[in-house]
Each structure stands twice: as C-alpha cells, then as structure tokens.
C-alpha cells in the first residue's frame, strides 16, 4: 500500500516537472491589438490611419527600432464619434495563441496610430518582410520610448486588422 502511494506521488512529481519544463518553452500567449481595460476612451485625443516609412537599415538597426516622428505620415483621422465602436472591434482582434516567433521589432508600413492625452501612443502597422506579412504592435510612452511590443506573422490577425481599416477609413490601403 505504501509503495503504491510512493509510486503515485513520484509519478505526479515527474508529470509536474515535465509540464513545467515544457511550459517554459511553449507558453500560451495572448496577442491583442487593443485592451479596453488599459485606458479610458476619454484619454484618447486622436486615432489616425498612418503610413510609417521605415525601410530596413542593415547598417544601423537601432535606427529602425527608435521611433522617429519624421517617418510618420498621417493619411486620415477617425471621427471621434466612432472611437468606441472602432476600439471595441479592434480589441476583438487577436486572441490566445501559441508563441509566435518575433519577426520584426519595429513598425513599418500602413497602420493605425492611437494617441493619448499624456503623449503616449499605440502604433500598429502591417508590412511585408521576406515574403511574409507581419503585424507590428507597439505601446510607447510620452517620450516615444517603446514599453511593449510584438511583431509577428499571424495572417488571421492581419486580415481582421485590414478589414477593420477598410470598414472605418475611406483611404484606399491596397
């Protein structure tokens, strides 16, 4: 009886060790383009369709990583009356997935800029890198320092994001 108990205990310990060890390498991650819990909608001053021109600079990669307002072109600004609907739909894009490999670490291409009263902002762009469509999401502080980001190739998320842009903006993004 005692040996059975020890066997079960040992098996459980082995299982938990296995799970935790595997889990370190393969976590479930959440990827969302907007978190409604993060800030009040009243804090938003502007939501714009933008083009962030940031071609890869092989010689100086930090040039790509650092946000540069001169690379940003505002194409269209969203009417504030539809902020709530737009953000609600934006927050639905993404979900829980496996861990995507990080493809890019800086914004590039057409996307959305959400600017806050305190100077902080969220920049989301879509670009094609080495034949893969990639989406970059970055949260920046008021001094344009990046606080959190991901740059992944998740086609479903990119398709949903582009469909949202087409729905809310008049500018042709093709």
């Amino acid at each position, binding site marked *: 009886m005692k040996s*059975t*108990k020890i066997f*079960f*205990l040992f*098996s*459980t310990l082995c*299982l*938990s060790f*296995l*799970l*935790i060890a*595997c*889990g370190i*390498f*393969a*976590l*479930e*991650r*959440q*990827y*969302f383009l907007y*978190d*409604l*819990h*993060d800030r009040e909608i009243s804090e938003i001053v502007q939501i714009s369709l933008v083009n962030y021109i940031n071609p890869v600079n092989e010689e100086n990669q930090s040039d790509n990583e650092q946000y540069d307002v001169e690379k940003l072109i505002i194409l269209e600004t969203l009417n504030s009356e539809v902020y709530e609907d737009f953000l609600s739909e934006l927050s639905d894009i993404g*979900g*829980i*997935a*496996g*861990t*995507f490999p990080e493809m890019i670490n800086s914004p590039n291409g057409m996307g959305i800029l959400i600017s806050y009263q305190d100077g902080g902002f969220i920049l989301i762009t879509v670009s094609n890198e080495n034949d893969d469509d990639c989406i970059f999401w970055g949260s920046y502080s008021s001094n344009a320092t990046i*606080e*959190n980001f991901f740059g992944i190739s*998740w*086609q*479903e998320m990119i398709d949903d994001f582009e469909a949202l842009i087409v729905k809310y903006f008049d500018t042709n993004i093709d």
Partner: protein
Amino acid sequence: MIRRIFLVISDYITPVMYTDSDGYLPEWLKDVGRFLGGVLITVVAAALTIASAPALLVPELSSAPLSSLNMTFYGAMLVASAFSSAIKSDMERISWNPYNENENAVSQSYDISFFKGVFVYRFGNTNGGGITCFSIGLGRGTHTDITLLHEYGHYRQQQLLGMGIYTGLIAIPSLISAKFTPELHSSRWYEKWATDWGKSKGFWW
C-alpha cells in the same frame, strides 16, 4: 464602544503605527493574525494534499488534492503577506478571498492572486500569456480576462480528467501546438474546450 474609546485615545496620543481604515485593529495585529492563520492553513492543507496525492491521477477525484494544494498556497500567501507589501496589496485586491470571482481583480494583480479557489501567480514582465499546471500562471502583461478564463478552463480539465490523462491528452499536445503551430492553437479542440469551460458558470458544464 471600543471604537469610541479608541478614537478618544487617538485624540490624545500621536499615532505611531499604521492602522486599518476603520480604526478597529492595528495593522500589525492583523498581520500577526494572518501569519498564524496562514501557518495553520498551510500545515493542514499540505497534510491533506500529501494524504490525497494519489487521487491526482484519478479522473474526477483529482479535485480534492488540487483544492487542498491551492489552499496550501493560500495559507503560504497569508504568511507571506505579513512580510511583503506587494503580496498584501494583491490579496487586498481580492478581499483576501481565495474563492474570488472577480476576473478584473486578478488581471490587475502584480505578483499573486486567487480565482475560484485556484492560486494564480504572475510571471515575466510585459508579455501576456498563461500556463496551467496545478495552479495558474499568468504573464504580467495579461490585463484582459480572456486568458485567465481560458487557463481556468484548463484547470477544470485537470479536475475532471486527473493529471495523468490531462497530461497525455491535453497538456503535451497543447504545449506542442503552442510551440509549433501557434496560428492554429486556439482552434484545437482542447483549447476551445478550455475557453468555453472557463467562461461557463456551471460547476461542470
């Protein structure tokens, strides 16, 4: 009456310690109470966990050791709260209730929390995500409720299937899927099941 006396006394003396907002008990006395209560809960729950550990591998019966294991963590957190203001603040967020059902309070925690009797620990810095193995691990970047509910769904799968079947049928396939086919991960049957079950309010379904 006691409160009145306390308020009268406090008019004449300079407060030298932090007291609770109601003015009933000094904070250090609460810490002592939580420490002693925490030690008691930890010891009893740990003994129950060890005694019922074999049931971890038995479908449905695994609820018992899983619950007592998470209560062991609760006792340990009560003890730790006497020494760590961060843990105390996380525990206050859920009103010290291990059966807390407020997802938002859990998502806003920094180090630890409890959700429906399950210990939740936070890891990493800014990334959102999660893992379930006896208890729930949530990345510190997780602010939405969806991940917590999904991981709670996995916890319920552990309760139903026992750790043996859960590991073979769900945990290992889930970890492989998360690593190698991240774009398909959320559409796997065991992941959809976890999401649906985590959101459902019923005990089993």
